[in-house]
């Protein structure tokens, strides 16, 4: 089966690419990187299409996560980026300050695996089992990673609240 002559591959790209791009953006924190990651992941899907055409989304998600991990490793060689500071134009003007200045930057500072768990669970609305399948790990790992990630976010929000209290006190 040849992907270049396959209209169902085109259909898959059209239907899945918005969700994949948004997930990639949340994983990488940079729109340019996200677009590149999605293109590369879809090319990997194209190569495997005859074998994975029954469940291409799972393969594409895994590809996105792995590519984002690689990007994240490379990030140490470049200036820090975050959703809140790099692409402010992509948040609506009425975005809650708490989200923009605290929560999303805190998400970007999580280890990539924890971030991936949050994105899959709370952005793509996958179940624990589906998230485990996408990450290639156990459901227990998903739960523990999610637990640790939420604790870190809670700490970040708590620090913000402490700072505000101190500001008011002064």
């Amino acid at each position, binding site marked *: 089966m040849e992907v270049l002559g396959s209209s169902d591959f085109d259909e898959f790209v059209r239907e899945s690419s918005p969700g994949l791009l948004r997930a990639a*953006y949340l994983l990488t924190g940079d729109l340019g990187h996200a677009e590149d990651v999605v293109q590369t992941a879809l090319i990997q899907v194209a190569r495997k299409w005859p074998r994975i055409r029954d469940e291409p989304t799972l393969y594409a998600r895994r590809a996105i996560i792995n590519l984002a991990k690689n990007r994240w490793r490379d990030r140490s060689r470049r200036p820090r980026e975050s959703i809140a500071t790099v692409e402010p134009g*992509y948040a609506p003007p009425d975005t809650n300050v708490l989200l923009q200045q605290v929560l999303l930057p805190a998400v970007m500072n999580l280890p990539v695996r924890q971030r991936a768990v949050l994105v899959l669970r709370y952005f793509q609305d996958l179940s624990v089992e589906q998230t485990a399948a996408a990450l290639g790990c156990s459901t227990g790992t998903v739960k523990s990673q999610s637990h640790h990630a939420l604790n870190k976010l809670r700490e970040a929000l708590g620090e913000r609240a402490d700072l505000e209290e101190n500001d008011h006190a002064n």
Partner: protein
Amino acid sequence: MPTDDDLTTLLRRGFAQATADLDPAPDLVHVVRRRHLSARRRRRVVAVAVPAAALAAGTGFALAGRNVPNHTPVAVPPPSAPTTSVAAPRTTQVTSVPMKPASYKVVLKDHSAPPNCPANATAPVGKSENPAGVWYWTENGTCVFIGVSWADTKPPNAAPVQIDGYPGLYGTLENGVRTIYAPVAPGTNDFHPRGGWVVLTVSANAPRELVVRLIVPAN
């Protein structure tokens, strides 16, 4: 302190807001197809060229004399490389993608520079500086040297050469020398920004398909 439910509600809201305006480029399907096609062409060339030479070397013709002066073994792709070509499609299906004018670049140009067709080579393929070109051992156990040079124009007597997957080639066959002219589009070669022709020369008894292993489409 916020509960897990509070946090996940905030997260969902934040994720939704941060990505609300993100949409893929309208031509994503076309871009993916083009990049897929380009990557597949590269895989086909790698899968055919170097492993075939490695196979020839495996027959024992070129494996003696590891202490040859001025000779550096050339890296050969891992054995798994050829399997990527299994799903290579027929070229007739390639036509569904809009094509640019044919343009090529030479592969193997960064490899080491051993002597020309050394009888005791330790590698199945290598590059020669003088004369400029590449040699490698074929499946038949013979060493073939392919000269690589440049021409701004092709000679008027060059005739179109039809080889599957390699459009736009021209060639001549004169005085026991087969010459293939591969077009190079302007702006694709740092040394020849105005474009021109890569000239590949080989003895007349070498098949044309052997010669084009040294080039890959550049667009």
